């Protein structure tokens, strides 16, 4: 297995103050953010919606991790993550979501970052920090894999 890239989270793909009409709108915005940083082809957005309809990507602590299907890996150009925050909340099949971590992956470049996210979700203080951070750099820092994971 190839050594993973240090950081698939591009600060340009972090938005602290987005708003969405609903779940699908929030997912489409995540998809477009991944398109804008050149990580995926535009058709990836539809695959993210399709994936969400099969099983919710809600993971707890007001966080969802929308991503594409296995078939859509073909339209991923490089591993990437985006973070879109919706302070007003999005109804996610009955759960309230304020943070969307959109994922595009064809390899394992995002694994350490997701591992860090899992740690954050198990720590209520850090989960709150992710929801409330005032600066993009703080979100990037929170999700940066710690020494232990490297």
């Amino acid at each position: 297995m190839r050594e993973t890239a240090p950081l698939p989270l591009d600060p340009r793909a972090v938005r602290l103050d987005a708003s969405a009409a609903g779940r699908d709108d929030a997912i489409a915005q995540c998809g477009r953010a991944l398109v804008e940083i050149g990580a995926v082809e535009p058709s990836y957005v539809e695959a993210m919606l399709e994936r969400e309809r099969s099983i919710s990507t809600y993971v707890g602590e007001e966080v969802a991790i929308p991503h594409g299907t296995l078939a859509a890996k073909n339209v991923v150009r490089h591993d990437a993550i985006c973070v879109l925050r919706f302070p007003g909340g999005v109804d996610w099949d009955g759960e309230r979501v304020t943070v969307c971590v959109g994922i595009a992956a064809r390899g394992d470049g995002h694994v350490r970052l997701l591992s860090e996210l899992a740690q954050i979700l198990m720590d209520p203080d850090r989960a709150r920090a992710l929801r409330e951070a005032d600066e993009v750099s703080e979100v990037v820092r929170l999700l940066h894999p710690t020494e232990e994971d490297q």
Partner: protein
Amino acid sequence: MAAIESKDIRKIVIACDAGMGSSVMLASQVRKQLKGEGVEVVHTPVNSIPGDADVVLCHAGLADRARASAPGVVLIPFQVFIGDPAVTRLVDTIKKGGTVDA
């Protein structure tokens, strides 16, 4: 009903549709919790579960596909990605010893 003794568990496979998101997160959790137990934890798409899997963990909504993909293997479905009681139970059984069935 398939069953396996905890001491015989060498490889846990966490399966989801794309092997891209949720299974990755759960795998990293389980790997941490089982550090030092000599158990390999991998994540794969549900349609390509490796033949040497001793236990398969997957979201309840994918259980039928996982069963078809890995017949006869102990399959543990879960509902939530972080802190699901079924996953906690598996980790506890591996650490303390006992039988895992599903």
